[in-house]
């Protein structure tokens, strides 16, 4: 299940970065990947649609959101927590 979440989150991020999923490193930041604030908002939307969760993310102030976007790894972890909380 967890591997599955990781794969899907990476696919979502890769689409916004216009890269292949295999090119996405877990330690990469959004900035490394060239994803701007609009790309992030779209990625959050895609995550919500894919996993049927509500992401606690406010685009007006991303740093203060509960959703940790500091790296690809942290985003995957945050999504895993949301998915676990869903059940």
């Amino acid at each position, binding site marked *: 299940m967890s591997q599955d979440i990781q794969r899907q989150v990476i696919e979502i991020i890769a689409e916004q970065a*216009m890269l292949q999923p295999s090119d996405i490193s877990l330690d990469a930041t959004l900035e490394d990947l060239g994803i701007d604030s*609009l790309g992030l908002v*779209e990625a*959050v*939307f895609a995550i919500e*649609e894919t996993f049927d969760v509500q992401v606690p993310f406010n685009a007006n102030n991303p740093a203060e959101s509960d959703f940790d976007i500091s790296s690809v790894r942290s985003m995957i972890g945050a999504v895993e927590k949301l998915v676990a909380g869903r059940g």
Partner: protein
Amino acid sequence: MRRVVITGQGAVSALGMGAAQTMEGMREGRLGIKPLDIKDVDRLTVRIGGQVTGYDPAAYFTRQQLTFYDRFTQFALLAAAEAMARSGLEITEELALRSGVVMGTAAGGLHTQDDSYRAVYEAGKNRVHPFVVPRLMNNAAAAQISMKYNLQGPSYAVASACASSNHAMGQAFQMIRSGMSDVMLTGGSESMLVFGGIKAWEGLRVMSRDACRPFSKNRNGMVQGEGGAVFVFEELEHARARGAEILAEVAGFSMTSDACDIVSPGREGAARAMQGALRDAGLSPEDIGYINAHGTGTTANDKTETAAVRMAFGDHADRLAISSTKSMHGHLIGGTGAVELLACIMALREGVIPPTIGYQEPDPECDLDVVPNVAREVKVTATLSNAFAFGGMNAVLALRSAP
């Protein structure tokens, strides 16, 4: 006084992709109205329209771009690209500050609204795409054009229903004439051919289920179209200095209000708008060889417009030609005046007046020379383009041959 000329044109309509294709359709009297190909068409009572078919957005735009471009914005950007290429204009850093965009649209991103309402109401979803707002806003098309060409002067959208484009182009004209800017990209675009958009129009009971037959006694309503057109308006000396090809001169503009009824057209307001445009252009009624009519194909509009032309032109009303190209491309609502300006440019440049097709039966209340069914070759040196909107808002542009 500063003079304003047109140095670029671009269009998308049911008659084709591009201004040349649209004008060729007008010249041939081609019918662009056909059965609608949209979702849930079986739940509509009106099932025809001037739809842009054979168009694949992915052939022109990237996926990232399309997340921000509603269909009305796509049409505007395609028309703008064509107009900019035709003008040969280079937007330098200096010129960027003296250039802007005014675009007309009545409904803005209606596809985006329709899709999003379906998502939350029909599919029961609790969220919509994050860019719904920047995609549906009425100024989206103007904004995307200004961003694409780095036009940093005045930019905004104008909404006055069926007169939106004419109001937009009139504003752009006045800005250049008054010295506020040197170059304006202007026109309008619209795409209301979605279930919700047509359902709304059905409610008014002014739509035809079979054809748009302006000025014909058996006319039975309007038919919606979609698309848009964009023009490069430029200050005359600026255009001359760079050796640009001048397509026509924007000679005058006038806007009036009936201040009477929200949907019924008024004769006096329309007549005052035509007279005002002539006065503003320094033209006399006898100078006008062609009027591109508002000509919606409704009973009320066509007879009122005929009476207004008689009121404004007196005896000359029987010596000028007037036609409605809506019979071919449908009524593009907020984009209609822009596409129809091409008919005026064609008359001035090529001496070809596009016909009113679908004309079957003379109506004593519409007894002008409406150029029935077949285009006509006539030398024309000045034209008017009429737009009379719901809300009693009238906007008329006067064009003159290139100086």
